[in-house]
């Protein structure tokens, strides 16, 4: 293509869009935030799958004790705390959407408290396992896989709690407004994911693994 031809071509294209008749149908696309959080959940699922696979593969392969049956108790209370936090965050969201700020703060704070209680129960359990039963991450395969998987989940709870606290502190200052609605929704989606993972961890570690 010669230089002048190229220039003509350019100017034609620069004026271009006017000449395409737009279609009459409406143009709607999903929200980028929602797509991103779904992608994040997808890749996190991959990460947990590897750790769950490792746990399942090593069930009963420890050469020394203690075994899961000897030391693990069903963490019923912790599970109730964590799962009910999924309910309170939904209630908080609902209150937020109806513009009831006080109620929103109450339920949001309740979610944080429930998450904190869950982590406390985990801490109590680990303390018992370490000091009473002598099970550490280096004791046997069970210890290695148990602390890794449960610890990975607890890490996600801590991250979620940081997000929740951040929102709570901002809401105390009155900075959380209706324009943050979708962001709150994303935090709640992440929180539901963390809870769903706990159901898997609970089943694998405390039911099947025992």
């Amino acid at each position: 293509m010669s230089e002048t031809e190229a220039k003509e071509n350019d100017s034609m294209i620069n004026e271009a869009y006017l000449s395409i008749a737009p279609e009459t149908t409406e143009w709607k696309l999903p929200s980028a935030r929602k797509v991103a959080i779904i992608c994040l959940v997808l890749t996190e699922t991959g990460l947990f799958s590897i750790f769950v696979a490792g746990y399942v593969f090593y069930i009963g392969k420890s050469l020394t004790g203690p075994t899961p049956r000897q030391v693990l108790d069903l963490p019923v209370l912790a599970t109730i705390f964590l799962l009910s936090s999924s309910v309170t965050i939904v209630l908080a969201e609902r209150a937020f959407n109806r513009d009831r700020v006080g109620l929103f703060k109450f339920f949001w704070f309740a979610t944080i408290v429930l998450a904190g209680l869950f982590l406390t129960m985990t801490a109590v359990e680990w303390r018992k396992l370490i000091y009473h039963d002598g099970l550490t991450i280096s004791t046997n395969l069970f210890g290695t896989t148990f602390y890794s998987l449960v610890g990975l989940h607890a890490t996600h709870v801590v991250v979620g709690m940081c997000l929740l606290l951040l929102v709570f502190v901002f809401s105390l200052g009155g900075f959380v407004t209706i324009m943050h609605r979708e962001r709150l929704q994303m935090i709640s989606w992440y929180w539901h994911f963390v809870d769903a993972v706990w159901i898997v961890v609970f089943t694998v570690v405390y039911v099947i693994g025992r």
Partner: protein
Amino acid sequence: MATQEIALPAVREPSASLMERLHGLVITVDHKKLGLMYIGTALGFLVVAGLMAVGIRLQLAVPVNKLLEPDVFNRFFTMHGTSMVFLVGMPIIAGLGNYLVPLMIGTRDMAFPRLNAFGYWMFLFGGLLLYFSYLGAPGLAGHGSAPDVGWFAYAPLTARAFSRGTSTDYWILSLLLTSVGSTVSAINVIATTIALRCPGMKLMRMPLLVWLMLVTNFMILLALPGLSGAQIMLLIDRYPGGHFFDTQAGGSAVIWQHFFWIFGHPEVYILMIPAFACLSEIIPVFSRKPIFGYPIMVGATAMIGLISVSVWAHHMFSVGMTSVGNTFFAISTFLVAIPTGIKIFNWLGTMYGGRIRFELPMLFCIAFLFQFLIAGLTGVMLAVVPFNWQLTDSYFVVAHFHYTLVGAFLFGIFAGFYYWYPKAVGRFLDPRLGLWHFWLFVIGFHLTFDTLHFAGFLGMPRRIFTYDAGRGWDTLNFIATVGALCQATAILVLAINIVRSAKKGRLAGNDPWDAWTLEWSTNSPPPDYNFATMPTVRSRRPLWDLKHPEDPDWKYE
């Protein structure tokens, strides 16, 4: 018409000092700048890792050579492999995706520009951390040097007892950082593609490059956690004293291989699909025909993505799996040949009956087709379990995967460089230097990797630092080294060309190749806002519709 050009001038400050420009790079969140930074950094690592390959080849040029010490050799092949995959391949993908996807779908930036910048800096510092091991491991820990356990870091080589010092930790931590970068970049590209398309850009109207980038980035999301998870387990083994891969406590060294290849095999396709993407854009434009079988191409790509997650253990036939396992993974590997074959036929179908212009991008594409075919055929050979038992860990395998990663991936990416350089810089890459680059690289590539197949047949194992004379490998190895030097010269020519043409190249104009996708409708280089007016599209080839209002595509699609 030429006089009343209303081209919007790109915003440039000619007086900006070097410091100001560097500062501009550090604070930028622009997808085009970040894309070019990704690619530029990747080319830097390509040169470093390429020089290591030259070192390896020089050491192997003659029998009983004493150029490199054995431990230096081990570090070289580890760093070469790790860098080429994580610091060259992955960032080039991220760079192409960043630069091209928003332009092709007609939007002004990525969905999350700051996250985009974060991804780049994670990658850069991850890469620097990996290379810092040369100083940091002996300097700070007083033990070891760069990683020397191979890019796959098989257990139990990586256990603390066998890998003293911190070299393996540098390998783990730097790759964890780059993986975070790759993950957020993948999330960003997917969100951009799904949520920011310009009006009328339905999914089945997207340029094939965008489709293929979408699939690749989904695969990154699914595959990378396999590696990251395994690396976290390895860290737990090395520091708090876990037993994941510790056979003395009942752990399994084989499960590391499973975890690694669950990531490692999809990774091969993660790298290959963007090369396919470049071909799918370039071949139609230089054949003057729309792509043959667009929906089939999309479907075949998705199929490659799906099948590739179920083939990983074909890297492990020699560890002694059950025959059911061997059969399953052999069959699933054969299956991948179907969608890749479909792709090759579709590219050929596009070229068939077209008015082919043998410009540089097209030359690289044609070389790709031949080389990728051979790479695929040796791949099918290696999927035959007894054949694999005979040749695993030999130079045949080395030759096979370099055929895919150099002969196909790199050729596809180079085609992309020659094709989009005029868009990114506003000037053509010099075609004479380009031809030198092409022929030197083709000849060097075949000298090196064709001969290495035969060295493999004659029993030369991988990863040895030297060999005795008289085993029939001498001549082959010498030819391979000559080829490696040829390729190094070709890369030097490319580097000179890239730098020189940025100032002196022929001006390109907005649409130098008479192409059909949206990126060619804006200035070269595109302004910060990409498009002055948001485009609207009605077909897969919006610029064709513009240039041919009497016969637009949307009447037939």
